[in-house]
């Protein structure tokens, strides 16, 4: 909840994380909160200590929408490792999120 209040990086490791993720949302809607909760859960499950999440609220910084070509919200952008991948929607379908992040559940 607090994490959504500002686009503060939420770092889980001191070293440069292998997974640099950015979550675009539009205001603190139920869908935004669900997406963040789902993302957080998946990351903790599969990427503990290897990721960073930056949350961007487009209602506050609309100029950032063009940079990552955001249309749908919520959109999760995997900036690292390359190539850039985009996962849209509330991330409730865990299997598809893992496919989108290029993570195999077996690796967790």
């Amino acid at each position: 909840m607090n994490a959504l209040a500002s686009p503060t990086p939420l770092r889980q490791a001191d070293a440069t994380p292998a997974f640099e993720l950015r979550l675009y949302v539009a205001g603190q809607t139920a869908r935004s909160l669900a997406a963040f909760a789902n993302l957080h859960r998946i990351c903790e499950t599969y990427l503990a200590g290897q990721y960073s999440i930056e949350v961007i609220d487009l209602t506050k910084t609309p100029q950032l929408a063009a940079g990552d070509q955001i249309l749908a919200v919520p959109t999760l952008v995997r900036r690292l490792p390359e190539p850039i991948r985009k996962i849209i929607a509330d991330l409730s379908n865990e299997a598809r999120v893992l496919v989108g992040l290029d993570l195999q559940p077996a690796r967790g």
Partner: protein
Amino acid sequence: MRKKQSESLPTLSRAPTGIDGLDEITGGGLPAGRPTLVCGSAGCGKTMLAMEFLVRGATRYGEPGVFMMFEENAAELTANVRSLGFDLDTLAGENQIVLDYVHIDRSEIEETGDYDLEGLFIRLGHAVDAIGAKRVVLDSVEALFAGIQNHAVLRAELRRLFRWLKARGLTAIITGEKGEGAAITRYGLEEYVADCVIILDQRIRDQICTRRLRVLKYRGTAHGMNEYPFLIGAHGFSVLPITSLQLDHEVSSQRVATGIPRLDTMLGGQGVFRGSSVLVSGSAGTGKSSIAAKMVETACRRGERALYFAYEESTAQIVRNMRSVDIDLDPWVKKGLLQIHSSRPTLQGLEQHLVVMHDLVRAFRPAVVAVDPISNLTMAQDDAQVKPTLMRLIDFLKKEQITAVFTSLTEGGDATTTPEESQVGVSSLMDTWLLLRNVEFTGERNRTIYVLKSRGMAHSNQVREFVLSDKGIDLVDVYLGGDRVLTGSARVSQEMQELATATLRGQDHDRKLRHLASRRRAIEAQIAALQAEVEAETEEVHFVIAQETLQVNTTHQNTDAMAQKRGGAVRPPGGSKAKR
């Protein structure tokens, strides 16, 4: 003027597009504050129309705009529209236009549940707020259908988008790809945009492409229902709404010489009116181009600019050929007073040719324009299309007070069609119509010319022979004798025959006069001789008398002398007579 209209009709306010002709068809522009759907097949000019709407809005009507594109990026679009004279970089720099490229790559996107397109709204809203935009173009939202899997969400969001545009009072153009069969758009966008639908169409006929525009629907307003040809030229989009043209151009009573003095004489003595249209028609080889070239050359001699559109010969060929009839165009071309524009009629459709003409005329501002020939331009077209399009051209030239000369090749010219009939399509648009004909007689063809009509002047009704030679163009009286019109050699021989007859007759008279003179001389000689005879006789008679008188006197004297000698008294003079 447009503004006034929208003020007087607040319920139907319009956002003028600034596109030539489109505002006339729609009665002032697109519905202000509402979305308009522009659809058509690929490459038919949707993006161009939308872009011109936006650029004109920003530059002419003080309405900044946002162009959101889904298919090409901003750099590509900027380059594409630069050919229309639109400088998007400058406009963007002045905050008049925002170009926003929305890129969707399906391969990068994974959908994992519930979402909406708020990101698009935020982007659009941000761009609109940034420059205070009044106009929006979405080109084309259909690309979203390819990028987003969940069409149910997409459709709901599009519906929301159009409501959102309306709520914000944005005049929007949404472009869409033409659908299969009867469908207006591929994804049925028309069901969201119900206020105004414009259809662009591109069709090919006889290998020539023409574009058409139709306002399919314009809620709550009367609009032109027809299909209108449109063009994309160097100055942007241009629709040709013939029916909305007004016949209200100014007219000039100034006269322009054609450069052929005897032709000017036939045209009321002073040539044609400035700004009028002249049709020169005739079958092949009757000298149409020469008349057109002469008029062009004459304009240059007056120091006016002239534009010559040639659709049959190349520039160099025209210059060379015209030299053979003593029309030298080359110096005028070099001087910059004359432009010859040669192109193939089949290069593009009639409309496209017209747009080229428009652009050249606007740029060069000539006083005389020659189109040689219009019949070639109309070759590949339906008659029904040609007339309105030519009307548009003639009207444009008249408005600009440009004297226009059109040549037209008469087809056939056989018994079934008279030359008059073959030009029915365009002749009514022309002010002056010169008809050239070939007359074949005694083994040669000769050219004749007559003025079929010439509005607003007392023109000659006579047929003249039209002579092209290395000394130029001349008109000669034809021989009208008996019931025949003779031209060429026949005329010359007839004339010579008459000359011979006249000479002979003249010689006869001379001979008679000479004869009379010599007779007179002879008679006078006779008279002189007779007089001499009379004088001689007179002298003779006088001599005889004198002699006799002398004798008588002598006799008297002798008698007197005798008497004296004999001592008789001297008789008084005369006494002797009495005595005798």
